[in-house]
């Protein structure tokens, strides 16, 4: 694996760690953006141009902005007095370490049987467009419906209801 891959992986993991460890929530959101950018660059490094640019547009352009808005609307940037970690943080850490141990054990056990084609795939945006309106047309329609429903649902859920007079 190339040097570039390791640099991008380190950038992504550092951003993710910072997002989960920093005390100030706004700083966490900024570190999250770094992690998303690192992931988009990893996708580009893996010759998945379309997915990489979709990642930049959706995650950095929309999700990160949404997170910042939610933090500012809930005044979450104030660091709570009694720490940022929950009471049973140790159990969570143990569970996460166990999951990582299981995953990495599975990957290292199956290194030999994993396929490893090194030929660089050539994928054009035209091929992806044809696949989206051809073979994957039903999933695209379902995702369109789901996004519409989710957008309307999010607006209705977050809508400010008038206080009923008492």
């Amino acid at each position, binding site marked *: 694996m190339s040097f570039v891959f390791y640099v991008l992986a380190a950038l992504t993991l550092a951003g993710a760690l910072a997002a989960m460890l920093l005390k100030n929530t706004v700083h966490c959101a900024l570190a999250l953006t770094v992690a998303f950018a690192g992931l988009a660059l990893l996708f580009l490094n893996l010759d998945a141009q379309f997915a990489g640019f979709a990642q930049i547009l959706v995650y950095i352009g929309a*999700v990160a902005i949404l997170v910042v808005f939610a933090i500012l609307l809930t005044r979450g940037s104030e660091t709570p007095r009694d720490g940022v970690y929950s009471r049973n943080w140790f159990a969570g850490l143990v569970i996460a370490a166990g999951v990582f141990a299981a995953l990495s054990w599975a990957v290292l056990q199956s290194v030999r049987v994993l396929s490893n084609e090194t030929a660089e795939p050539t994928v054009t945006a035209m091929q992806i467009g044809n696949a989206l309106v051809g073979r994957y047309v039903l999933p695209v329609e379902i995702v369109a419906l789901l996004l519409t429903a989710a957008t309307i649902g999010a607006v209705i859920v977050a809508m400010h209801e008038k206080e009923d007079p008492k």
Partner: protein
Amino acid sequence: MTPLASCLLVAALLFSIGLAGALTRRNAILVLIGIELMLNAANLNLIAFWRYGPHPELLTGMMFAIFSIAIAAAEAAVGLGLVIQIHRHAHTTDLDAMNRMKG
């Protein structure tokens, strides 16, 4: 270490970081951020399997990742809307303080 295995290990590490954050942070927004990181780790796996799999020209893994990105965007919108509404109702986003389902 083969390229696919190193991609999978990076994704496993990213997933574990997201899981640890989702399980240990108090702020509901940061729990959502942890869930987003886990979804992104899954996307990285999909892209890696697509890139190093036997038939990349079929675009299967890439399409899976693109649909997964769209679903994650919907999830983030609904989740953050819920957090804002909970904050309006309970005046806190601390998950340890929200231990009742009754308002």
